[in-house]
């Protein structure tokens, strides 16, 4: 291919350097559409954060954030999510620089495991909080906490389901155009969840733990 010298960036994200031009234009609009969706999702999270900020003291005499949040699990969860973002970056790099599906699949599996580890920790946290009586029915504050953090967790869960589907598609079709587009989109989704998590650990966990 002639264009191997400098893969022209036609959409944000790692580009597929060896695609013909017409395919690339479709990839461009497909990925841009997903960006628009992500921004809409970001506004949704922003509204949740805004509501969270207004009900921060609405604990109705029940447990408070400082009682319930564990410093160490917040750190570990953050570490796991950041690591999974990095390993997904390796998926994108393998997709761009190799032709085989093996490396791509391997890194997807790693990302899936790390992401699942994050979810497991979060679920464990929730269960402990339930045992302490910090349930969503207890107060407006915990309603909002569980919906906000749970919404992020639900997104992570969707990402994991998506990874399974992409793994199957990779096995069936190999890295063809549609698989690649969807892997690029999944990458944006996954990194975007990291951005949301940055806000969650700052605004929810750390703010709750400041004394």
């Amino acid at each position, binding site marked *: 291919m002639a264009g191997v010298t400098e893969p022209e960036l036609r959409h944000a994200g790692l580009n597929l350097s060896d695609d013909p031009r017409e395919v690339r*234009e479709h990839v*461009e*609009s497909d990925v*841009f*559409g997903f960006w*628009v*969706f992500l*921004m*809409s*999702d970001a*506004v*949704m999270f*922003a*509204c*949740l954060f805004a*509501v969270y900020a*207004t*009900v921060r003291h*609405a*604990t*109705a005499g029940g447990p408070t954030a400082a009682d319930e949040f564990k410093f160490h699990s917040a750190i570990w969860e953050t570490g796991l999510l950041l690591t999974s973002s990095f390993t997904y970056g390796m998926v994108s790099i393998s997709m761009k620089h190799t032709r085989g599906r093996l490396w791509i699949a391997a890194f997807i599996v790693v990302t899936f495991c790390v992401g699942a580890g994050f979810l497991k920790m979060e679920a464990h946290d929730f269960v402990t909080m339930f045992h302490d009586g910090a349930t*969503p*029915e*207890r*107060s*407006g*504050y915990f*309603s*909002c906490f*569980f*919906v906000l953090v749970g919404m992020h967790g639900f997104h992570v869960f969707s990402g994991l389901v998506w990874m399974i*589907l992409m793994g199957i*598609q990779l096995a*069936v*079709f190999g890295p*063809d155009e*549609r698989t690649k587009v*969807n892997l690029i989109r999944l990458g944006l989704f996954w990194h975007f969840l990291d951005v949301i998590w940055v806000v969650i650990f700052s605004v929810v966990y750390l703010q709750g733990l400041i004394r």
Partner: protein
Amino acid sequence: MTIWHILLGRLTWSSLAFVRAWRDPTLSELIGAAAAAIAVGGAVVLFGLLTYLRAWRYLWSEWLTSLDHKRIGIMYMVFAGVMLARALIEAVVIRTQQAIAINNQGIVGPEHFAELFSTHGTIMVFFVGMPLLIGLMNYVMPLQIGSRDVAFPYLNSISLWLTIGGGIMMMASLVVGKFSTGGWSGYPPYTELAFNGGVGPDYWIWSVSLSSLGALMTGINFAVTIYKFRAPGMTWMRLPLFTWTSLCTSILMIFAVPPLTIATLMLAADRYLGMHFFTNDLGGNMMNFVNLFWLFGHPEVYILILPPFGVYSEVVSAYSSKELYGYTSLVIATMAIAILSFTVWLHHFFTMGQSAPINAFFGIATMLIGIPTGVKIYDWIWTMFWGEVRLNTAMLFSIGFMVTFVIGGMSGIILATPPVDYMVHNTLFLIAHFHNMLIPGMLYGVIAGYYYWFPKAFGFRLSEKWGRRTFFCFFVGFYLAFMPLYVMGLGGVARRSQELFDPTLRPWTIVAEIGALLLFTGLACIFIQLYVSIKQRHQTRVPVGDPWDARGLEWSMSAPPPEYNFAVIPQVSRRDAFYWRKKYDGAYRPADHYRDIELPKNSMCGILVGMGLTACFFGFVWHIWWLAFLGFAVAFGTAVVRSFNRDVNRVIPAAEVAAHDRRWLDRAAAARPIPRHLELTPENEGLAKWQG
């Protein structure tokens, strides 16, 4: 937990409107049962007719599964027309109630009356206004920018079926159960479990969710289409104004729908999981709902009003035979309105307890929107100035809009002043104000656009005679129906009153009732116009495709257009591309060579996903959990299966495209060019005579 409870959830015999009327035959219940009978009967008649005509296969393979943006647009409009009929009838019942119920119970009970204004508002906003405009945009926008389809045709189909699913839920609420009594805005804590244990608020939550999901996807779809699928040379400042307003509306949908999603989600969490977002106790704060709802609600107003602004810009320019005056200022005004619409939401709750400086800020921001809107009105007036204006139906609606909308704007400025708002909030004055904005701002615009683009979509013109009658009814009807409401509102009559107690109000309520009936006659006129126009279509055919001597790319093809829109993608070098092609004799020329065209195959995935989610949400409403699970599984499974299908496109060979194009060009060569003043005569075959 009986087996019936597992199978049917909260459904019981007395959920059925017929059974309620049988057991308690009051006038109010009988009216409810009659409405249910109309809904069921309509469905049965439609079903029978389709079976009798053996139209199911055609309908399924050509329409319901179609991914063609033009067909999806038409289906949106048909759906919205049905919903409009229902919501307008409800409006007539509401006005009749207020005309009769002065110191007596009237025809419907308080509960039933509350259901009526709730469904009227919900339907008019979510299932009439949005689908009508999305339908118009779907049809026209890709043609205007020189594209073969929208960016994501499959997503487009899903959006359609989600919206229709919401409409089906609204219709179902007539027959089984009762709709919310909490108004279209559904404020808690009234809509919380503590005060409303029934299915009403759940119907509201889930049907609105379906609609907003559809609107969000449509917004993404259209924004990407306009961003990435413009024909070569179609730069931003060459876009037709309707496309500009479509873009701004799409952006509003993308960013305004999420707050609504969050608000309804939280309300659902309160009702289904016992949470405390908006309850009275345990730290709930209902002001969060009000705030989130209007973060969505105000941009929503501009979602409804911007596309008609685009329609007026196209219509006024075409029928004044002039270039649009002040194109740049119109574009800037559109964008300014779109941005400002995110800064004014608080004017919907001036009286809810925040400090005066905050109210003052939002009051001023609200008044600022009057400036770009005023710019637009002046631009349209200057477009008409010294033009060859043809006062046909679309122009009458446009001029009627300008006059009426300015009056509504003035009352808006009054309401935007917080101290005055304290006096008239929650009165009929407010009702008069927003109907004064939405009827001319939305409905007139849709009718004008319908009249203007109908010949393009179906290949024949609409009856002018019935168009004028429609205009008379909608114009006079509006003034009769809503000017009395201003007077009553200033007198302090609260909105949503089931019964009035001051006999001196009677003249006003009767005038308003006459107005409502006239508006209903207007709707009847639209349907008659359609019937008459189809009957006499042989005299009004415009196959060449340019009946109005118009200017945009959408007129540069046959009417109705081929499914691939453009035989070859046009090259655009100026604004009003088709006008300049006609001027320099570049129109109606064959292309140098034709290519194969790739189009998406029809797919039943859209309808499956849409109906699956509808079943899921219906299960939520009635606590029929197996149905909810099944519906979700169908929707999700369809989406997954579809993602494994790589064979989604089909190819139309170049020879076929060339043959179709040649037939059309021969037709154009044989047609007689018609000067503008003869465009309403049978001679008009859709070829305009060049008059500069």
